[in-house]
């Protein structure tokens, strides 16, 4: 099924922006164009940017828009094919070997039986290329994996096929929409980058951040949303170890709404610093900038 059949708006960049907005995701032109090309070219999209700017959220929203499954592979050091691609069901295979001991079948025959699809446990990557409807495959924080795993991904991302020694090469029934995210904690290889569309997602502008807060929390006071965006934008200019992202802005806004705070002052700020600053050194550093922040919230 093409995007036009799902939703004719998905064939234009403005349409994608509108559809995402309906689902409370404010996409700028670059993100909307990126999603348009992901759907049109069926190439993976590599999104890099600081933590908490909505890289993961875009994949979730895209799955909602396309009304399809979101298959997520969370990357970490040591991730290998057994956790990402497939694994054989060893207890079931062992049981089968025992049960067929007396049948007189040759080793080759029994081997062919136990290494068949009935004994295969599908992990996210294999699952993503075996769907009837193209899913959204989110490969989250790819920079956390080892180089070996990154190299393994090349075949999947270029050809949308995987090779299982016992079964041969499995081609995708439908090409998934692939989104990879990275926080740039290490350099990714050129080979991987060349297989992807590339998008750098930075912190949003003041106006966009206010819009995001108001979209996610429709009941919030406009002035409060603006002050939150102002303070957060200022904090991002400071040399913090962990600068607050959009996720922190939203958490903070939600916390303030829950606490029935209609405006910001230094007392409220000190009560709620923990929602946006999550490092002890940062909390210490902020003490030196209290004066400026007080001016901002005044």
């Amino acid at each position: 099924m093409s995007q036009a059949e799902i939703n004719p708006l998905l064939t234009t960049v403005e349409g994608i922006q509108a559809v995402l907005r309906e689902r409370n995701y404010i996409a700028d032109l670059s993100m909307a164009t990126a999603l348009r090309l992901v759907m049109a070219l069926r190439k993976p999209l590599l999104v890099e940017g600081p933590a908490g700017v909505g890289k993961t959220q875009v994949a979730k929203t895209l799955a909602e828009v396309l009304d399809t499954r979101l298959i997520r592979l969370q990357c970490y050091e040591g991730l290998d094919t057994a956790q990402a691609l497939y694994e054989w069901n060893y207890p079931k295979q062992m049981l089968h070997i025992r049960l067929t001991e007396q049948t007189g079948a040759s080793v080759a025959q029994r081997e062919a039986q136990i290494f068949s699809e009935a004994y295969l446990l599908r992990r996210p990557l294999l699952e993503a290329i075996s769907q009837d409807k193209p899913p959204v495959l989110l490969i989250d924080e790819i920079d956390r994996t080892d180089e070996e795993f990154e190299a393994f991904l090349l075949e999947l991302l270029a050809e949308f096929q995987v090779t299982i020694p016992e079964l041969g090469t499995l081609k995708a029934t439908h090409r998934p929409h692939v989104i990879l995210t990275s926080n740039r904690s290490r350099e990714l290889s050129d080979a991987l980058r060349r297989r992807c569309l590339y998008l750098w997602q930075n912190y949003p502008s003041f106006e966009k951040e206010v819009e995001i807060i108001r979209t996610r929390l429709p009941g919030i006071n406009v002035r409060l949303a603006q002050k939150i965006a102002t303070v957060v934008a200022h904090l991002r200019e400071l040399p913090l170890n962990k600068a607050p992202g959009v996720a922190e802005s939203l958490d903070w806004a939600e916390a303030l709404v829950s606490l029935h705070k209609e405006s910001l002052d230094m007392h409220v700020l000190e009560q709620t610093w923990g929602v946006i600053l999550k490092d002890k050194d940062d909390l210490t550093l902020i003490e030196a900038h209290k004066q400026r922040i007080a001016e901002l919230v005044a």
Partner: protein
Amino acid sequence: MSTSATPLQFPHGSLPENLIAFIEHLRQTTQRFNLGPGEVQDALEALGAINLGSLQEVRQALKLVLCSNLEQERVFDDLFFQFFLPSRKRIEALPNVYKANPGSQGETGQKSQPARNNPSEALSDPQSPLAQGKTRLAEDSDASNWAAPLLKAMFSRTAGSETPEVEIPQQDLDAMLLAATQLVNQVRLGRSRRWVSTPKGTRYHFRRTLRKALHTGGEPINPAWQHHPKRQPRFVFVLDGSRSMQSYSDRLLQFAYALRMRCNRVEVFAFSTGLKRITQQLEKARSLSERPRLSQLGQAWGGGTKIGENLLLLEQKYGGLLRGDTLVFVASDGLDTGAPEVLDYALRQIYHRSAALIWLNPLLDSEGYNPHANCMKTALPYLDRFCAAHTPEDYARLTYRLKLRH
């Protein structure tokens, strides 16, 4: 960014021709746009999927297809307008992608506006305390024997002089290679979370065990094993090549060279007033064997000293190299008159991102020397080891019983 002497002109006629000319234009820049026929095809398909009447959409689509990293992304808009609309100014001012990057060019191709309270950007503001700190004198001039290099460092903070080729000394190289091997072997990073096959291990390798069992009637008589391999360390070696380090840089360079020969996971940088990654040059020097030497070091050798700014640049431009398994060596005499705030910020970032931060200061063994200079005072809280190294034996002990943070 630079283009060739014979730039291709726009317009060329058809859309594909223009696109090919633009891609050729990108290839000729210094950002190493590595674009082949596949990218040309993708770009054409991308243009077919968007509204060709919208300049912004065309720019964004081409950017998505033709850029593959942040450095390229940052200069793409300028290159796009330079090629397609040379007489037109940028239609929008996009925010800079780097939060802090001294001397970096914004997307408009001009120096980014200084942001208040941002250590690196504040440097460009002559009124800021950071910039004023540049002119501060160091405080540790008790001993006259190293006051001269300090003065030299202070008054030559502009560019490095013409840098001749720098030769890597061959004397005692074997001893230094041995020291590098010992240094690498002493690093204990614990074990990775990966599982690898091994004759003896801590976990059954079910797949292999099962395959072996097929030949013994399903009985796993010969189990296969897996274990977690040892984590291999990475090294980032940052060498101060300024004039005040001239007497010591040969030995330090030799050590960097030996370390690179003994371990592939080594990245080497040199800095003076500018920073340069010299890993590839060391690699080439290694293959030439006879008289290994480095050339074209530019502002990274033989000039003044900008420690804070260059370490900040390292952290921001090459931050991907700093990981939980990376040991960072900074080899410098610390004779810098730059703003300590910048150095403090840069070292804090490097400290948090690396497994250990080791500072090699060749003056440390000098009589009467105390690390009271602003630079060294700022650095000390972040250092896991602060020492001097002169002989191969000294270098071998740099990681001896070193406690790593990750």
